[in-house]
């Protein structure tokens, strides 16, 4: 670390992102399907990117959500899907896009009853999730 590094010091106004611009870019910018940096790269930790670099935009989330709907159908998962969000600015518009696609594709979706933020482990608790006896699959798919 350079001796004049600002690591560990409080963030300054110049370090902060323009949130309104970030959210507008989410809806405004469309990925180039031939640019590998703008494609969906869905690994174990899911898809990551930023609206500013056209790697995390409305089109990515709509397409990925539809792909998850298709995957659930192929696997025979017909239980409810739990969805949560953290406090990153893009988590809320992405959640809205996902809900629009999920509901239109007849997936039962459960959201936080306080409309608040949801830690990851709260979405990952198979045994304490509500169950539906008639469902052939443990209805605990979640994000």
């Amino acid at each position: 670390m350079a001796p004049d590094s600002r690591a560990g010091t409080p963030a300054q106004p110049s370090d902060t992102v323009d949130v309104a611009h970030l959210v507008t870019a989410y809806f405004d910018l469309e990925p180039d399907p031939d640019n590998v940096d703008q494609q969906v790269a869905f690994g174990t930790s899911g898809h990551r990117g930023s609206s500013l670099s056209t790697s995390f935009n409305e089109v990515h989330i709509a397409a990925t959500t539809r792909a998850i709907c298709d995957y659930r159908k192929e696997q025979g998962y017909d239980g409810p899907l739990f969805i949560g969000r953290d406090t990153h600015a893009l988590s809320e518009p992405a959640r809205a896009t996902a809900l629009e696609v999920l509901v239109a594709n007849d997936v039962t979706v459960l959201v936080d009853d306080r409309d608040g933020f949801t830690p990851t482990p709260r979405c990952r608790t198979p045994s304490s999730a509500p169950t539906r006896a008639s469902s052939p699959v443990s209805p605990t798919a979640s994000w």
Partner: protein
Amino acid sequence: MTPSHNPPADGGFKYNPPHGGPADSDATTVIAARANELIRGNIEGVRRIAFAKARTAVGAYDFLGSYVDDLPSVVDLALIRDAGVKIGADPLGGASVAYWGEIAERHGLDLTVVNPLVDPTFRFMTLDWDEKIRMDCSSPSAMASLIARKDDYDIATGNDADADRHGIVTPDGGLMNPNHFLSVAIAHLFGGNRPGWPAGARIGKTLVSSSMIDRVAASLDKPMVEVPVGFKWFVPGLIDGSFGFGGEESAGASFLRMDGSTRTTDKDGLILCLLASEIPAKTGSSPSALYAGLVAEHGDPAYARVDAPATREQKAKLAALSPDDVTATTLAGEQITGRLTEAPGNGAKIGGLKVTTESAWFAARPSGTEDVYKIYAESFRGPDHPARVQAEAREVVSAALG
């Protein structure tokens, strides 16, 4: 929806199938390919309805209440309350913010939410090592403001933005190295403090986590299982109760309920933070003091990670190595005792190489995003020895790649 600890301009989208743990590559490959195909077709045929309509069609679930009320089944909150452990919890502006206040309220803990502010710029953070804002609870730079207040609490804890990871700060030790806290947590959980767990419950670790865990497991005579990097490898064992604990060196872990039943099948930063308070409540010692005890008993391992350049072809070859490709017989002055390209615990491919000697090891894994491979190394032979292990690891890897 979360990009974990990553900077404020980032977004992330994860999917966990019904087992509740991270999706395996058979799911993620199909989903990514289908999503890119849809993007190429201008997402025509992706049915959508207006948000106002979608919003009214969803069901409501009490995520917070059901989580918070279940916590006494996994951590001894009564013990923490009765011992009067003074806790400071810093959500780093993330999703755990409302949870910590409720945990304190419902379970009567002496817990202060250090910074309850939510702001999507995360302007209250201290800058990470590269001068970026990053909500990394295992980074001394990102955690600097909490570390500065370490003497205000018996235990201070941080979580990343989606709260699946934990950072533990003690008055005597500051921010604990994640490997050190994992070792202490395992020594506590398997050292007689979970009598309700099955007798054969195993310790799950990734093969790049500290071998201090191996020594703790051996001294407690508990079975330990080494899996490749990634929490998904712990999911089956946490579901059937054969793993009591699963943890990664990147400060992500989970463990069973007191009665041996499943709590979560993904990392849970909140229960690890609460465990950090159960430990002094039970033992009277801070987790960092207990780690010093482990060092006195087992030795003082030094751990390091560096990147080495590799082309795309070299990375592919590294990921597909077999043990026979390793011709070296010694490493940094010791006989090589193990050459692994599959994890010993479950036979799964490492996607790289691990070489062990009596007191040291290295693991080499290709980076998924950059033209480098990562060399993890650890040694019980002094703070300078890992660098020698890493230097010789480069030679071993180069020879193996031909």
